[in-house]
């Protein structure tokens, strides 16, 4: 067996029988992805329509087209409407099997229209990657027994890859001294201005106080976070996955406390894909509801 086939065994678990709990969990997870897809489409669409006036930073396809056309004539809102309709249809398996791919393309356009103002947020990336994995799964692995495993396995693959990639981006961007605690001081002060500006008030919490008092404490905080990113790819192994996931969730709580950056959808998604929830559901249901069979 080749090395990548071994990773495939860990991600897709080909030897394990499909259970009712697995299918129910899969549709619940898909519902979570659809909910955030529609929410983001409207949040971005409304902001684009009412706030964006000119392109400051072109991202993605905005490098090759004039994305400012989405700022007027309600085009961003129409796009949000289309994303909503297509997502719901795709959820219920109505329409062609490439419908999720259309949602992916429209959502990309919605993102680059909204975030053409200079900010490059990442908290919505996991939802975007999930839509992509649903798109590829629905198109190339539409069979009921295959699609759930491919979708969840590929999502886990790209989550793990993303964290480890973030580790190397820091190593290349700054060097081995990235974890110097004084770097955290700069970020805490920068984020404190954001909070003060957004809300009019700011007060440091206990973790920020601790980091600002001691370079050693600040360095340890950064080092723990950086190391956790490095081992992100260990999510690929099913036995280690819950441990890695727990460490990653802890890291996100640390980022929220130290730098006031929240990753709600990110963390909920980690909780959903990082643990074998289907085992819990299997304890309560013995057969797959007919309606779930219809929607897989």
């Amino acid at each position, binding site marked *: 067996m080749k090395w*990548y*086939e071994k*990773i*495939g*065994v860990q*991600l*897709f678990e*080909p030897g*394990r029988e*499909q259970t009712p709990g697995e299918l129910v969990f899969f549709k619940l997870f898909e519902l979570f992805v659809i909910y955030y897809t529609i929410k983001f489409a409207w949040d971005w669409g409304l902001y684009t329509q009412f*706030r964006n006036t000119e392109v*400051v*930073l072109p*991202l*993605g396809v905005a*490098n090759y087209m004039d994305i400012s056309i989405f700022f007027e004539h309600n085009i961003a809102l129409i796009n949000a409407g289309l994303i909503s309709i297509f997502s719901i249809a795709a959820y219920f398996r109505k329409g062609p099997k490439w419908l999720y791919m259309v949602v992916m393309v429209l959502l*990309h356009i919605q*993102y*680059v229209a909204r*975030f053409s*103002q*200079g900010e490059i*947020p*990442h908290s*919505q*990336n*996991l939802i*975007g990657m999930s*839509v*992509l994995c649903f798109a590829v799964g629905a198109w*190339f*692995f539409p069979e009921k027994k*295959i699609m759930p*495993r*491919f979708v969840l396995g*590929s999502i886990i*693959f790209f989550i793990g890859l993303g964290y480890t*990639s*973030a580790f190397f*981006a*820091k190593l*290349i*961007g*700054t060097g081995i001294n*990235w974890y*110097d605690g*004084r*770097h955290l001081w*700069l970020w805490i*002060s*920068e984020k404190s*201005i*954001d909070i*003060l*500006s*957004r*809300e*009019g*008030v700011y007060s440091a919490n206990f973790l920020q106080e601790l980091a600002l008092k001691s*370079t050693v404490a600040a360095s340890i905080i950064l080092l723990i976070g950086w190391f956790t990113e490095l081992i992100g790819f260990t999510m690929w192994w099913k036995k280690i996955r819950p441990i890695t996931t727990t460490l990653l969730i802890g890291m996100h709580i640390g980022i929220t406390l130290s730098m006031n950056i929240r990753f709600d959808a990110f963390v909920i998604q980690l909780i959903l894909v990082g643990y074998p929830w289907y085992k819990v559901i299997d304890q309560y249901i013995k057969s797959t509801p007919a309606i779930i069979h219809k929607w897989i």
Partner: protein
Amino acid sequence: MNKEYSKKGMKVIGVIFVIFALLVAPHEGEFWPFSIYPMFSQAGNPWTRAMVIDVTDHDTDEIWEAHSLENLRGNPVPVGKYGVDQIDYSNFMSKTRNWTEPRRMALIQMFGSENIGSQRWMASKVHGKMVGEDSVAVIVQPFLLFTADSVYMNPLLDESEYFRGGN
């Protein structure tokens, strides 16, 4: 799922990964939802953010000097209350190279004349950097004073601060 499909699944992931690499490589690591997650990768650099400060109750001759965060001239205006994204506002302030008339008036448009009312608000840049080995210095630089219908540039700053050329 059998082993054959598992193998095929990994090959499809491999194809997605290649597309991922081809898209992010020429786009500075970002092609949503693909990303190499470069946030916070360049540590230790000075930063610039922005705030709005309500200077209605302060005399005009005392509002233009740069000052520390502890000596703010007036109270911070919570921009989120007016539906403005703080990061977008910061980028608007720090990345604008030429403060032309339309660009200055866009500041009023951003917050809405009706929200500004009879108040005088100062759009300030906030600079942070390491000083020595063990402290961060934060300086607030008043930049544009704006009311419901007018925007004024800081008379203490050189014109080159407002018109830096290029796009």
